[in-house]
């Protein structure tokens, strides 16, 4: 018995790739069957279609569901709405996140830096839902923002902003502007941390060299810091973009009840039983993300992770 075990271990010693296979098989099976397998099965459903008469799924290959997705103006609206918001949120998070990350990376003592890390991570310790619901109260018509502006006699300013076409609405919590604010807040940490990491890697000597060569602060920033931080911004934007693309909870709580991709998927597969259309809808974020990641990779986003 022992000798056969010995033989086995000798065999494995000589054939290292078999050993590797044995160790890697469980996680590979997990990834392959449970993760990718279910995904592929689900996406494959987009090639089936719903029988108009019985409302049951017909298991025959057809492109009619995908055609339906792209031929209905309401569906196109949903796709455009979601992608535009995801882009806006990514840009917003980069604009707000960059100065914070820059300050953290270049101008703080280690102690202050820990404080910043904590302050950025702290919201992630509380429930996502709690944060979204509290934003609903903050943005409400009877909420704190309105109250402060009323005390400052600035209600006219808010009214002017809310009367803007498209982004405005009856109140902050019932407008795209409100959604943008909440999304930006929720995903901000995912933007700050990669930018901060990429800025940490910019050596101070490089900045000094730039000054020595006669560059102004502004020139140094645009010619040296920003290009080197770009991979970090691209990496952060992958998070903010993809997370916004798939979220279906914030649009239910904040905003004008207009649907986003995540909600469309949820509703079509959950309440309507229209799994083919839900699957077709989920193809879009995958496609958009593939294009997005292709360009992010060109900017070197994966070097900053």
């Amino acid at each position, binding site marked *: 018995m022992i000798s056969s075990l010995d033989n086995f271990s000798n065999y494995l010693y000589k054939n290292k790739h078999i050993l590797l296979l044995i160790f890697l098989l469980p996680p590979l099976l997990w990834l392959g069957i449970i993760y990718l397998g279910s995904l592929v099965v689900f996406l494959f459903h987009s090639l089936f279609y*719903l029988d*108009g*008469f*019985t*409302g049951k*799924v017909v*298991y025959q290959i057809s492109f009619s569901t995908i055609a339906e997705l792209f031929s*209905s*103006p*309401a569906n196109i*609206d*949903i796709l455009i*709405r979601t992608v535009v918001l995801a882009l806006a949120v990514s840009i917003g998070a980069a604009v707000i996140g960059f100065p914070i990350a820059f300050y953290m990376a270049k101008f703080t003592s280690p102690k202050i830096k820990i404080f910043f890390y904590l302050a950025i991570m702290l919201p992630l310790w509380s429930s996502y839902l709690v944060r979204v619901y509290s934003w*609903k*109260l903050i943005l*409400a*018509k*009877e*909420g704190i923002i309105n109250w402060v502006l009323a005390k400052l006699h600035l209600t006219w300013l808010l009214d002017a902003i809310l009367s803007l076409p498209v982004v405005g*609405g*009856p*109140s902050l*919590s*019932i407008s795209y502007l409100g959604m943008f604010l909440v999304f930006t807040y929720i995903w901000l940490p995912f933007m700050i941390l990669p930018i901060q990491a990429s800025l940490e890697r910019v050596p101070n000597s490089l900045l000094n060299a730039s000054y020595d060569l006669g560059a102004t602060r502004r020139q140094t920033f645009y010619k040296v810091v920003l290009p080197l931080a770009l991979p970090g911004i691209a990496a952060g934007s992958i998070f903010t973009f993809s997370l916004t693309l798939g979220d279906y909870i914030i649009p*239910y*709580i904040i*905003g*004008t*009840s*207009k*649907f986003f991709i995540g909600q*469309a998927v949820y*509703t*079509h597969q*959950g*309440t*309507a*039983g*229209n799994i083919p*259309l839900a699957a077709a809808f989920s193809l879009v974020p995958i496609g958009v993300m593939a294009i997005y990641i292709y360009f992010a990779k060109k900017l070197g986003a994966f070097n900053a992770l």
Partner: protein
Amino acid sequence: MKKVSIIAILFSFVSLPLFAAPLQSLGSGEGELNVVAWAGYLERGETVEAFDWVTGYEDNTGCKVNIKTAGTSDEMVALMNEGGFDIVTASGDASLRLIAGGTVQEINIDLIPSWDTIDPRLQNAEWHTVDGKHYGTPYMWGSNVLMYNTNAVSEAPTSWDVVFEEKTLSDGKSNKGRVQAFDGPIHIADAAMYLMYHQPELGIKDPYELTNDQYQASLDLLRQQRELVGRYWHDAFMQIDDFTNEGFVLSASWPFQVNLLVGAEQPIASTIPQEGATGWADTTMVHSDSENINCAYMWMEHQLSSNLQSDLGVWFGAVPSVPSKCGTGLMDPAAGIYQEGQNACQINGIDNFDKIYFWKTPVSKCETQESCVPYYKWVTDYIAVLGGR
């Protein structure tokens, strides 16, 4: 997928003859009862101490109740199809699907002593009685109501037009942006019901059975409503928040929200306008393969004869299936107790039964028309309406 359904069909052939006849006599309890129910339907005093209608059943029968809550009718059907449950509180849209699928069994009403106390209007209701066979015991019913803020709307509106058309309210301001509507596709039925009253030439006979023309007319009305609606509601507590903090004053809603808002001393009231209202009626049904069938029958008796009917009616803002059990209180969420002296059944609309169009799933094959628009179309088109299309 296909394989599973073939097996299910084969299985139903096997199991149907076995359960062709309902239970003939009651034995002793099996010690357990597994329930699929709506949230808030089975309370054992854990949310609010005064509301407990499960412990008494467990003590009397020795059947321990295990509760699985479901959020939608589709979820309920899926759970029942999976099996392992004894009873379900199915709404009108799920019940017929469960019967057609052979998932629930015919019940013997002779084994339920309190059957005759059930509201006669519910005893043979079409959502649980098929070909004269009973497939369940009525649990609870209720209606949607028109909820309004009394500061903005001084008199109870007599028509749903206040949520479908732009109007100046009694506070001198337009209703635009101050109206809410349910974000589920079933809200299309509310529009159809409105048109049924105001445009008889469309020939709508049942708000859940719409021909394409009737359906398009309903969608047009909802597109007009979209202009008035700031935000749609899908969660009862979020609507309560919106009526408290966002200045909404009118909405089709449930008595549940009205009761909670009134309890929180908000200037809120509700009414059922002349066109009628949509509503729900739930039924306790027994799984075909139930292993605890005696406990299930005991539950159905308990559901009719105990404090369940009166307390649940008050708790949920619904109407008991047993009229003699009407509670005499209104829930006060702050104190968690009844306010004595008010008739909960009256408040929750027991007199409105004939005005209510009970919820059912729209299907292509319908009775009142030649062919109807099925539910999955309702979903797609309602999403488009919400998006302003």
